[in-house]
């Protein structure tokens, strides 16, 4: 369909290439137009961005339809030499396979909806067109990221989405927090990126310059990827390094700290970037590189993921900021995905990415809608708006149920798959029992905090009547995306079965399209018993969670204050987010600053004034021993440098010129006698 379309309109070009270039290029075009002339366009040019992303959306839908018809073996790739040096080539290329197409679908859909939503949400903003420019840029980078056929190209777009994220988080840069958050996001993810870059370096080094996914995999498959470093095989090490990139981007522990702060950005941005797409890029990367990871590396991934899942979930418990709760939930869910990938549930992990994209985007957009209506993010100031915003409430409810993993909703499908796989993984390797444990616990916690959110926001009495009075349902550009996304959160959309159990699908295996497209034909099925246990367990956990939430926040039979009082220590820890930020603050930033200051001081005092201006060795050793460069004595000793020594000696030397001629003569004669005496002695 796609190919014929392009053959019709652009007969001279390779249809697939031009389609891909167009898919990638449209948002870029939108960006360029918006950044340069957006302000002068009608309506600030929002139609440009929405239009361009719609084209991409349409193209990816067409592509998806093609894919469904051609089956999971579909793969199309093309590449160009980008950097061509003697004995060294770097290529740029496009790889289109089911994973790519699914990602494209997710990205463009969510993008399109969020763009649409933004028209309503951002309409009063003074930098309206710039906002759309950034959004377009993000979509471009994200599409590029999934289209890339090699690690290097992927890395490029990887950084670019980071840039887009930075720009959008600090979009309201007048707020110092927003500015701070943007910077934090960029830097923290960059730490991960550096790890990834090192991974790329290792791969590049080990494979003699192969960076293509396929060639790397075949290289690994042939067992040519040898080498060790500190007793760890380089392959594992490279895998972990690559995974580090994902840790940064997908906000996994310990680099998760940026994501909650990133909520300073506009809510649609949070929905698009920090819930649905960019943060999922890490998961995408792990999926993409899946064959590359050794079992050891996968274990690391699994542990990281599961720990992040439980860890973030606990943090979400106590937060009162609606977006922050969602942010921690995102972290937690990403952790689940990572866990899934780590335990080898390749399909399940990616599946959860797709479903999560829909319901989490929906959740964020709903939250945005609420915020838009109430002008606050604090749940304690909300309450009882169920009636005033029925669409929002309904869609959010659907998404919440999906997130909590309740049957009939998409979250149930994918999460259950992951949990089942992790359980069976743990059954095979009992020593790794913590992984599923964390997973199941986090499910319960998720249900708890999500329902807490719902109850606090939509039920009960309005806590701030002034805000409540102003509240109203959002315009259609905002609600439409909500509805579409909530529809996508239904299990039937993914499985063809209303309940969400794949086995009961209505339209054959193709209706379970994610699974159908991704499942490697040869993959062995895990014993279903594990799945069953998992099903029961997770449902129980979710049920418990909902129950507690209901009791505490709806019925208020259990007082949250009392519980907080009782578990004060834990509560405090949780509200302080485990003091992670404080730890970083103390451990990294503080010490880094001290190091900086020290070094700068070092530069001023020691290098400049001692080594260069100064006579070095004696003073250096004393200064390093004391370590305190502020020390007055050293200061006074060091200040004089070579320059000053020279000048001082100049000052001394000229004193021999006393003005007394007889002394001059004495010097001359003395020198003669001196030389003669010296000669007699020698």
């Amino acid at each position, binding site marked *: 369909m796609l190919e014929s379309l392009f053959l019709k309109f652009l007969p001279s070009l390779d249809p697939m290439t031009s389609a891909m270039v167009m898919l990638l290029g449209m948002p870029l075009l939108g960006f360029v137009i918006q950044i340069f002339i957006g302000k002068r366009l009608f309506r600030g040019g929002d139609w440009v961005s929405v239009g361009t992303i719609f084209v991409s959306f349409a193209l990816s839908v067409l592509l998806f339809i093609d894919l469904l018809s051609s089956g999971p073996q579909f793969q199309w790739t093309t590449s160009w030499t980008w950097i061509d040096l003697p004995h060294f080539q770097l290529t740029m290329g496009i790889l289109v396979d089911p994973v790519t197409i699914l990602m494209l679908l997710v990205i463009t859909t969510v993008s399109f909806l969020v763009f649409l939503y933004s028209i309503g949400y951002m309409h009063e903003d003074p930098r309206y067109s710039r906002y759309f420019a950034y959004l377009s840029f993000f979509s471009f980078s994200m599409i590029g990221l999934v289209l890339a056929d090699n690690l290097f190209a992927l890395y490029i777009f990887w950084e670019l989405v980071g840039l887009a994220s930075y720009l959008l988080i600090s979009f309201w840069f007048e707020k110092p927090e927003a500015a701070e958050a943007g910077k934090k996001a960029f830097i923290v993810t960059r730490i991960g990126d550096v790890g990834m870059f090192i991974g790329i370096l290792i791969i590049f080094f080990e494979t003699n310059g192969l960076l293509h996914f396929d060639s790397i995999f075949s290289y690994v498959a042939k067992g040519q990827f040898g080498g060790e470093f500190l007793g760890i095989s380089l392959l594992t090490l490279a895998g972990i390094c690559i995974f580090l990139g994902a840790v940064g981007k997908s906000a996994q522990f310990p680099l998760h700290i940026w994501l909650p702060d990133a909520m300073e950005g506009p809510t649609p941005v949070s929905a698009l970037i920090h819930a649905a797409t960019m943060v999922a890029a890490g998961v995408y990367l792990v999926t993409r590189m899946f064959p590359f990871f050794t079992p050891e590396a996968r274990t690391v991934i699994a542990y990281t993921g599961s720990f992040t899942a439980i860890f973030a979930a606990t943090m979400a418990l106590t937060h009162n900021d609606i977006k922050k709760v969602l942010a921690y939930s995102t972290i937690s869910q990403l952790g689940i995905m990572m866990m899934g990938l780590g335990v080898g549930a390749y399909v399940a992990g990616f599946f959860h990415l797709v479903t999560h994209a829909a319901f989490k985007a929906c959740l964020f957009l709903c939250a945005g809608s609420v915020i838009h209506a109430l002008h606050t993010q604090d749940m304690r100031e909300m309450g009882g708006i169920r009636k005033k915003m029925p669409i929002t409430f309904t869609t959010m409810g659907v998404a919440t149920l999906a997130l909590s993993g309740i049957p009939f909703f998409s979250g149930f499908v994918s999460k259950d798959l992951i949990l089942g796989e992790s359980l069976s993984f743990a059954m095979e390797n009992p020593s790794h029992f913590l992984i599923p444990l964390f997973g199941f616990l986090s499910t319960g916690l998720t249900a708890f905090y999500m329902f807490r959110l719902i109850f606090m926001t939509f039920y009960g009495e309005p806590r701030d009547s002034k805000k409540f009075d102003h509240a109203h349902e959002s315009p259609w550009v905002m609600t439409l995306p909500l509805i579409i996304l909530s529809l996508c959160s239904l299990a039937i959309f993914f499985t063809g079965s209303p309940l969400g159990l794949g086995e009961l699908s209505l339209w054959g295996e193709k209706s379970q399209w994610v699974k159908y497209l991704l499942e490697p034909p040869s993959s062995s099925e895990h014993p279903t018993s594990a799945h069953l246990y998992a099903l029961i367990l997770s449902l129980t956990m979710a049920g418990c969670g909902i129950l507690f939430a209901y009791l505490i926040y709806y019925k208020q039979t259990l007082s949250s204050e009392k519980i907080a009082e009782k578990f004060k220590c834990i509560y405090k820890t949780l509200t302080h987010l485990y003091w992670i930020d404080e730890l970083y603050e103390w451990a990294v930033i503080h010490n880094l600053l001290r190091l900086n200051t020290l070094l700068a001081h070092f530069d001023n005092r020691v290098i400049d004034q001692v080594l260069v201006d100064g006579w070095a060795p004696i003073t250096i050793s004393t200064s390093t021993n004391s370590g305190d460069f502020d020390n007055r004595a050293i200061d006074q000793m060091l200040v004089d440098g070579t320059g000053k020594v020279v000048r001082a000696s100049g000052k001394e030397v000229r004193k021999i010129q006393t*003005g007394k001629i007889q002394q*001059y003569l004495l010097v001359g004669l*003395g020198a003669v006698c001196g030389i003669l005496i010296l000669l007699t002695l020698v």
Partner: protein
Amino acid sequence: MESLSLNLALYSPEIILSITLGFVLIVQMISQSRLFTFLTALVGLMVSAGATLAIKSFSPQFFFANQLSHDPFSLFFKLFFIIATFFTFLFSYRSYEIDEERGAEFYLLTLAVTIGMCTLVASINLLTLYLSLELVSIVSYALAGFRKEHPASNEAAIKYLLYGAFASGTMLWGLSLLYGFTGSLNIYSINATLSTASLNPLALYSMVLMVLFGFGFKITSVPFHMWAPDVYHGAPTPTAAFFTVAPKAAGFAIFIRFFYSVFANNSGLPDQWITLPHVDWAFLMAILSAVTMTLGNLSALWQKNAKRMLAYSSIAHAGYMLMGFIVLSKEGLVSILFYLVVYFFMNFGAFFVVGLLANKTKNEDISGFKGLGWTSPLVAFSMAVFLFSLTGIPPFAGFIGKVYLFSALVQKEIYWLLVVAILNTVISLYYYTYIVREMFLVKPVNSDKALVLSPLHVFTLILLVIPTFIFGLYWEPLFKYVSNSLQFIVIP
């Protein structure tokens, strides 16, 4: 009597100078006009320079009963002195230190010094050597004290005289010992005897050192340099400029001729020398060279008086030039000669600018240079050129001079001295740029007026700046001329 006319012909530059000397007196008495006297002196110098060029065609020989040697070496220096004197006269014109009615006396004395220097570089006989050296010195004492009302000038004169007398006395004693040991006053005979006789090294060293006292005094080498800052400082600026250039060059010339003829022998290789056995004066001089440049530069760092600073700088430059002296090769000597030419333009130029400025401010303080670059760009620019050239920065001539000196050292692999020299170059930058800084980096006070320059001054300045440039960019002819001039040893 044919030989007498030949002798006179070969001595014609000096004779013309003596005639000019007389004419200057007469013209001054008759016309009472400074300008005429000035022109007379200049014309005399030009004729003398012409004569110097003319007698180049005579083959190298000894004349005046082996008292003097006619060779390219001496001709080069004669020309050098005549040109230096020429510039000194240009400099002195309208200088506030050489007042109007005493111009003729100034010319007369300076001409006498020039005659002495011209004879000095040609002399190969101890007596002529001593006599011409004393002619240079004694008249210089009078020149240093030329501003007789000025205590500084008096002081310069007495210091110069006392140091000079002491130095020449010591040297005289040394010369007498040489004479006593060899029984001859001719330097070649002395060398012949010295190189065959077996002398106690210590005795030889004593002679070398005593003679060195006299020569070191002239070239301002440490430790015989101490008079120089005071004398250059106190003497009238044109004279000081003259002193730092001409007598120093004369000192170098005779130093080279004497040491290379008396205390060294040809090593067998062309253009290479070796010192007399057991008397490694080259090494001694190398150390003195290092100390000289270092001391000169270090002392210059803190000077507040431009003239005094330049005086120290001229000591440092003597140290640089000594580097060429110690390598005992033609390359080294050529580099000294080359450097002298270059040094003349830049050092004289720097003094000239100081003098121009002093004509306005009546002193030579460096603070007087403040903002000069903004009020009188031409003068300041020239000064900057001279100073950078003195530092040894391309594309100015001073750099080329240094390159030749350094390359002489590299060829002989005397790297330690080279390192001292380059470090000194860096140090010297500091005080040279101090003046540049005052001129350009400091904005002038509103009341500062531009220097009033007569066309003659501008002309002189340009005449000094242009070679400083040209020889930095294209010095091939000069180098060829200089290396051809290095034939001073005529086998008797």
